[in-house]
């Protein structure tokens, strides 16, 4: 099951819409890391609002995505972790260390705009 990835300005937004298998998660990782290059993205948002389970594999894959995207020059923000999911992650001792998190899509975009401001500032301004 594929996860749709939208391009929004300098950012990519991946919205998970249904339960994902491990293979789906790895597919998401690979396409995001590829598309960061294709679209020269500065930021990646992964919306996990629809995920009712984030087990060790899911958390590890999200961490991998964030680290791989960072090596390709893009910041990743996870948005929409549900309260029950947050609790189960804490109980399992799973952390999103090194990964940014924000409450929802709006906050995630605001965070990325702030974070990537410096990068775009260096560009030569030009009319579009």
């Amino acid at each position, binding site marked *: 099951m594929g996860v749709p990835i939208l391009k929004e300005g300098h950012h990519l937004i991946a919205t998970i819409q249904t339960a994902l*298998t491990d293979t789906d998660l790895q597919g998401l990782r690979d396409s995001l890391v590829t598309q960061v290059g294709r679209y020269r993205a500065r930021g990646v948002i992964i919306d996990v609002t*629809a995920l*009712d*389970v984030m*087990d060790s594999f899911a958390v590890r894959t999200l961490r991998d995505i964030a680290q791989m995207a960072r090596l390709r020059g893009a910041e990743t923000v996870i948005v929409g972790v*549900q309260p*029950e999911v947050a*609790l*189960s992650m804490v*109980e399992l001792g799973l952390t999103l260390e090194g990964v940014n998190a924000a409450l929802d899509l709006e906050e995630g975009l605001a965070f990325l705009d702030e974070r990537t401001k410096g990068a775009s500032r260096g560009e030569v301004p030009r009319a579009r």
Partner: protein
Amino acid sequence: MRGERRGAVQPDGRLPALRSKGRASADLPAQNSIPVRSDADIVLARQKGRELAAALGFGPTDLTLIATAISELARNIVLYAKRGRIVLKGIERNSRRGIMVVARDGGPGIPNVAGALQSGFSTSGGLGLGLPGVRRLTDEFDIESAVGRGTTVTVKKWLR
């Protein structure tokens, strides 16, 4: 729609109107046995677990904890034993309801069970068996493992 959240209705279409206390255990939803061989089965097992737990009257937080525990147990089966089974069962003790999850495989077994129950212990490149986590997510935890014969993990969670 959120895939695994839609677990409130029984497979036969019954609504989970099972909150009333003190009913005979004959009313408990039937047990469910799911073969686990692939990562798609991991998702199926936790969805079935969520459905059964919802029918038993567990709230949203416990549903997530139970589904997460099943996910970890099923993943251990796929990862270490290749194939096995998750058995889900509604249980009752002292007129208290709960869910029992049995993860059984005929895989290589765990040579160092005590070690596998310590946080941070892993034999497969950092993913971890997740057993200490599963233990924290549930109320009762039992493991039997014999090298070369397989592993059976039994967990229970009780309605509060």
